[in-house]
């Protein structure tokens, strides 16, 4: 068995290298002032690309908008997903498959179709270009991710604890805060982190529903990537990754980590 596990190990290592290599490239591009074809390494290392990026007037607004919208969307999504996941986890009438479909519908229906079609209504309701509109459409797109994780979490938790708490005389709020929330925290943290990342990464909704007034990082990033300006695009990419890591880190602190007695 040892020989084959070594082979497996190297295969996995190879896969991991394939994952990391492009990221390294990204980093190199972002710190190169001059990297012409056919040089394999950047000719001039400098932070000038970052300087350029910071000078872009929309940079700080984009960062702020991305983070703010993502945080708001995360909170709204979790608030909607928690009770819904609890209902779906313990109800007995609908089949698992049906519940799956209901949850994944926003992922099945083409995003561009939904966004462009609902844009008309958004316009009529004066929701385009507003934060409220953005949060609305982002939440729609992020709910499936949260629901999937929280549904699984609730199923793993089971009803036993909350039923026991109920028979011991606790009311609904107490049951949630003292029993459900502490035991669900790892799942809630994971889904919050995922929703945050997905919201940060959205391009189409911000483009169509943002009405040109709201700028986020992906909106700035796409044109640079499209124009082949690798240096600038890479630096934006790394800033983007840094922002998501920051947001995820803050969320983890806020919601909390592993509780004793929970299964992960």
């Amino acid at each position, binding site marked *: 068995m040892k020989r084959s596990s070594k082979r497996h190990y190297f295969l996995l290592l190879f896969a991991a290298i394939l994952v990391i290599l492009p990221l390294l490239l990204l980093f190199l591009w972002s710190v190169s002032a001059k990297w012409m074809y056919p040089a394999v390494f950047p000719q001039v290392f400098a932070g000038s690309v970052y300087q350029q990026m910071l000078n872009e007037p929309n940079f700080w607004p984009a960062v702020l908008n991305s983070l703010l919208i993502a945080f708001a969307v995360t909170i709204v999504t979790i608030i909607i997903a928690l009770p819904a996941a609890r209902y779906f986890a313990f109800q007995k009438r609908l089949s698992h498959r049906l519940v799956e479909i209901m949850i994944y519908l926003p992922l099945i229906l*083409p*995003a561009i179709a939904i966004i462009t079609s*609902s844009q008309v209504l958004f316009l009529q309701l004066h929701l385009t270009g507003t934060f409220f509109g953005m949060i609305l459409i982002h939440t729609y797109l992020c709910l499936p991710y949260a629901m999937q994780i929280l549904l699984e979490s609730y199923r793993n938790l089971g009803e036993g604890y909350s039923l026991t708490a109920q028979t011991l005389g606790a009311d609904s709020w107490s049951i949630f805060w003292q029993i459900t929330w502490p035991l669900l925290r790892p799942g809630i943290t994971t889904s919050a982190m995922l929703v945050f990342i997905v919201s940060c990464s959205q391009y189409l909704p911000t483009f169509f529903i943002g009405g040109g007034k709201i700028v986020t990082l992906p909106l700035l990033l796409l044109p640079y990537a*499209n124009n082949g300006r690798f240096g600038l695009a890479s630096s934006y990419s790394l800033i983007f990754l840094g922002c998501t890591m920051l947001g995820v880190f803050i969320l983890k602190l806020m919601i909390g980590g592993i509780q004793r007695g929970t299964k992960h």
Partner: protein
Amino acid sequence: MNKKRVLVIPFLLLNGAVILAALFKGIQISLGYYPLIGLNKISLTNYQQVLNDPFFQKSLGYSCYLALTATFLSLLLGLLLAFLLLKVKNPWLHKIISLPISLPHIIVALMMMQMIGQTGIISRFFFQLGWIQEVGQFLLMIHDSGGVGIILVFLYKEIPYVAVTTLAILQQLQLGYIEVARNLGASSVRIFFAVILPMIQKTLFTLFIILFCFTFASFEVPYLLGNPSNQTVALTAYDLFTQADLTTRPQAFALNLVMSGICLVVAAVALVISRILPGGRKTS
């Protein structure tokens, strides 16, 4: 149970509101009722145009090709990767493998350009090694008609996703079943098809639906890495919607509904197949 039903209302409200808003307006305008530009005759001409126009047909066909190829390869390779992850327990490797899941498609497309583009790093290596003498000789993998770059982007993102998802199921799999099968003399291949596959088949089909629909309707990746003469549906829709000329809107909405229809049909077919195959009906 009425108290419990309240829990799911916000969820239904939000999803319902967005989907119905899109559906309502979509159907209305695509059927020809668009007072904003003076159209108020209901007819199916827009749909006829969309479905009969060779440009649209090509667009739909190309998107289907990309989606099917990327999804099948992702499922296959993802499953293999899952088995690797099952056997090798190194946590660092696991973490690295799941990185692509949190990377946005735009960034992955950018990385692909930097890797396999004609001015990308591999091309530069080839040049240095003397295998090509000029940029144009390097194999065209992005902006190409086969969509190689596009498919690679989706593979980079989706193989880890499939691997991580099926890994969770595989870990829960009762290893007892496999032991018993082996004791009774079954070969590994047999064990895979008769024991393991039915257990993960439902997940695989769900993954298929999600990945197919997502790839089919993807915008950012074909936008960045696509070939101008081979548009995907999302790009076609995007073009139609960003034109100042509003008379193309009804067609655009018809295209939206056709797109959605295709996704729903594929989902339905996949679900039916999954139900028929062993393991498709819930036993507990």
